[in-house]
């Protein structure tokens, strides 16, 4: 079944090369950091840290992100998700651990190399937009290019291109204060993409926006990701957002990553009670994909069918009056199996 899944999604996250990997990243706050360094890994329980007067904001974070994957870090406020993001980008110096971009550990980069890495390969979107109030939309978007000395007309042309991409045409001369929150974050997104980075970091980018705008911008992110695929690290406290955007989600609790998995894995096989309570209200049909329920068969007939990558709720209308066996197609249109209608309906009913 696993093989089938890999085959069905054609280009699964797991088969692509690793773009970013974190190994045993720790970030502790407190006065007695020396005590922390003396402790071996097994002695670093939450209680032990508290006893030493330390707070473990990020504890032993280890994971790998594949090229082009959307990796969502999710947790409640105070769980350490934003700190983890800042350790990955080295906006915060982590206490221990390594973060590899390709084969270079960002922790060991000299200032010059770090600046170069950030200027050319990284883009970041901030929770409160972090727009420069004294600059127009166009000038804000061109800012990263200006900083690295790109010629003015070249930077302007690129910025205009991005204005169009994020749907702000005609507003390039406005100042941030003249825009709505959603529009401001569109500027933030455009700015983060100005240098066409490989790595795209988004720190709770939509949590300051109201629900309708939030949905619009999530669509925008999905659209951008489809046309120009990047390696994305997306921090959020919103489970719905995580499910909608993520290839894989890392759930954090009190500084620790408690589970990493696809939305489907989180909902169907929660690793801890905490995760279970977290995902309890998610209906399985929203995360279970056709590929997980189908019977693989190599000789299925072509023609009409559903995508193996679609979720059950996405194909729900077809289940009402469709045939008992619905044929399933891979992304390239090749038939890969058949979906039993009743099985799908059972999944749909499970969350109701």
């Amino acid at each position, binding site marked *: 079944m696993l093989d089938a899944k890999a085959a069905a999604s054609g280009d699964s996250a797991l088969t692509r090369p690793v773009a970013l990997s974190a190994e045993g990243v720790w970030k502790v706050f407190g006065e007695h950091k020396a005590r922390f360094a003396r402790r071996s890994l097994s002695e670093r329980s939450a209680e032990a840290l508290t006893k030493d007067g330390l707070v473990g904001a990020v504890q032993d974070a280890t994971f790998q992100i594949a090229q082009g994957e959307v990796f969502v870090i999710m947790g409640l406020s105070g769980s350490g998700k934003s700190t983890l993001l*800042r350790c990955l980008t080295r906006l915060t110096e982590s206490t221990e651990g390594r973060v590899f971009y390709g084969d270079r550990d960002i922790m060991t980069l000299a200032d010059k190399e770090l600046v170069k890495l*950030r*200027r050319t390969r990284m*883009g970041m979107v901030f929770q409160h937009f972090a727009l420069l109030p004294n600059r127009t939309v166009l000038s804000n978007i061109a800012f990263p290019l*200006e*900083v*690295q000395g790109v010629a003015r007309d070249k930077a302007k042309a690129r910025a205009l291109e991005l204005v169009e991409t994020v749907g702000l045409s005609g507003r390039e001369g406005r*100042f941030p*204060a003249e825009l709505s929150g959603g529009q401001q974050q569109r500027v933030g997104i455009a700015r983060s993409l100005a240098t066409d980075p490989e790595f795209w970091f988004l720190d709770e980018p939509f949590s300051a926006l109201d629900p309708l705008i939030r949905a619009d911008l999530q669509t925008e992110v999905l659209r951008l990701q489809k046309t120009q695929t990047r390696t994305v690290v997306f921090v959020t406290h919103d489970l719905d957002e995580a499910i909608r955007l993520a290839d894989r989600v890392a759930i954090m609790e009190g500084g620790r990553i408690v589970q990493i998995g696809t939305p489907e894995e989180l909902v169907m096989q929660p690793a801890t009670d905490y995760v279970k309570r977290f995902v309890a209200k998610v209906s399985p049909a929203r995360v279970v994909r056709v590929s997980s329920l189908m019977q693989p068969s190599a000789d299925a007939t072509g023609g009409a069918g559903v995508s193996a990558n679609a979720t059950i709720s996405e194909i729900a209308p077809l289940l009402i009056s469709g045939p008992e066996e619905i044929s399933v197609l891979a992304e390239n249109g090749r038939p890969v199996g058949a979906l039993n209608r009743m099985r799908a309906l059972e999944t749909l009913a499970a969350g109701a």
Partner: protein
Amino acid sequence: MADTFLKEQARARSIGDWIALPVLIAVIFAAPFFPAVLTSVPNWAILPVSNWVGEGLNWLARDAGIGGVTFADVTRALAAAAEAPIEWLKIVLAEGWVTGAGFNKVQAAPPLSWLGVTLAVALVALRLSGRGLMLLTLVAGCYLALFGLWVSAMTTLASVLLCVVTALVLGLAIGIRAYRSPRTEAFVRAVMNVMQTVPIFSYLLPTLLLFGYGPSAALFATVVYALPPMVHATVLALRSVPQETLELARMTGCSRAQTLWKVELPVAVPRLAIGLNQVVMMTLNMVIIASMIGAGGLGYDVLRALRRLDFGAGFEAGMGIVALAVVLDRLTQAAAHNQSTQAVGLWRRRDTALALALLIFFTLISFVIPSLGLWPDDLTLTTAPFWNGAVSFINREFYEPLDAIRTAMLLKVMNPFRDLLLATPWTLIGLLVCSAGYWLGGRRAALTVAALLLFIALTGYWEPAMVSVYLTILAVAIALAIGLPFGLWVSSRPRLHQPVQLVLDTLQTLPTLVYLLPAVMLFRNGDFSALIAVVSYAIAPAVRYGMAGMKHVPSERVEAAAMSGCTPWQTFRFVRLPSAMPTLLLGVNQTVMMALSMLVIAALVGTRELGQEVYTSLTRGEVGPGIVAGLCVACIALIADTLLKSAAARAARHEGDIHA
């Protein structure tokens, strides 16, 4: 755990109180029987600090130097360097290009036309704020020109402009340094705290010694005086830049310089603009005072009129200062407001062209029509005779009631209180003040207060200090008695908020010297006039904090009181007043600071306290006594500050609030 600790501390304190109180009372009753050493500071104990300071500074000014270059050379070079831009600005704004001297004096070129300058500034006012400010600017400009104050006003403005630019550049540089290094910041803050309590005259003394009488000495004194608020504003403004914006700078790979110039400073501009407004107003105040050491301008006109007792001329020049102050304040405030509301594009390129055209056109025309360059003397309006007449009329017709008020106040209240303070043994006053410090703020506060008191006693300024204290206490009491209730009353009438705020703002922009004029016109020289001037200056913060205190009362508490069936008076007495107490105490503190800074200026109308000591030293050029007496004023201010801030903190703890 903290709870039991507090309880134990409270118990220890209450036991202490039980022992201390009877002892204190006993000491008070024993006071008349104190030996002489304890009643007045013995001569042998007085340290010749003022001599040391004087000699030290004189040595610095005359003999100090490294490798052939004396300190005096350096200061002289600095003075010369500062002289040039002042002269240049004066030529452009005030006097025009003059060749020859005495009877051969020929004006080769007129200064910028008054009409041109007024119209250009009015255009700026129109663009930045609107028609109201434009009208105000036009009226102020015409007033200055028609009443023959233009040259003085432009001389003052030239100094203000130069000082503001210098203070701005230096303040930014120091502020950026302090923002980046916590150690520098701590140092700068300590220096600034003292600098803000040292009376304004004391700034004049060292500069007078180092740079000599003249505009450049005034420039240096003013820049030093206006620097602390600019540094403070810079640090606060830079610190207000959001964390995320700084992260943006790092993520886009900004260099240190790029971060500063492209991110931090532009984002901080709205707050810097507010700081700039303060700096402009402080500069104006200081430039007016600095006319004593040769800054000239409107301040000099007022001083000269005061000396000649020509109240009319003084009043007119005073109104000129008011006009200049109000326009400068409103303009810089409008600029700051536009910055913080992101109102942009108000000033366009063709506005610059228009303003320049106005300036050049009217200046060129003034070659042909001189009255457009400078309003001719024989056409000058004056209301001085009217005001002089009014003053003599008041003094003739209302002499008796005015004099009765003055005499009654002097004989029944002021003199007895002063005599009581002077007669009280210095040790007893010290003991009482220190106990108050201990009771309000613990051992630290008590020790601070004791050290400051000892400085005053040991430098030999105890008696004039007590005179200062008596005037300050009376003035503060009156200002509070009028200001606080008024502020409380206004706070419950939202419609009055804005007009009262406007009046308060205007009052606080006026340079201190202006406040002396009405008092002297009505009550002549002496302590009573000084008292009136100090009260009228110190009343603004009393009203302001009265209003602010009530605004801070959490509305839920008021609603809870209403639902418990409190009468309005009960709500006030049991809910509003206790909640507002920390803010009100800070208001008292502010009032004391304002009163002290005004008291020193009031030395001009003939008081006999520390301010007078500073002022006489200034006129005699005795640096040592002037500086030490000035430091004594600072000590009084710091004592009041320590006591009242401790009291406010105590009240805030008591209320469980954190906002104080």
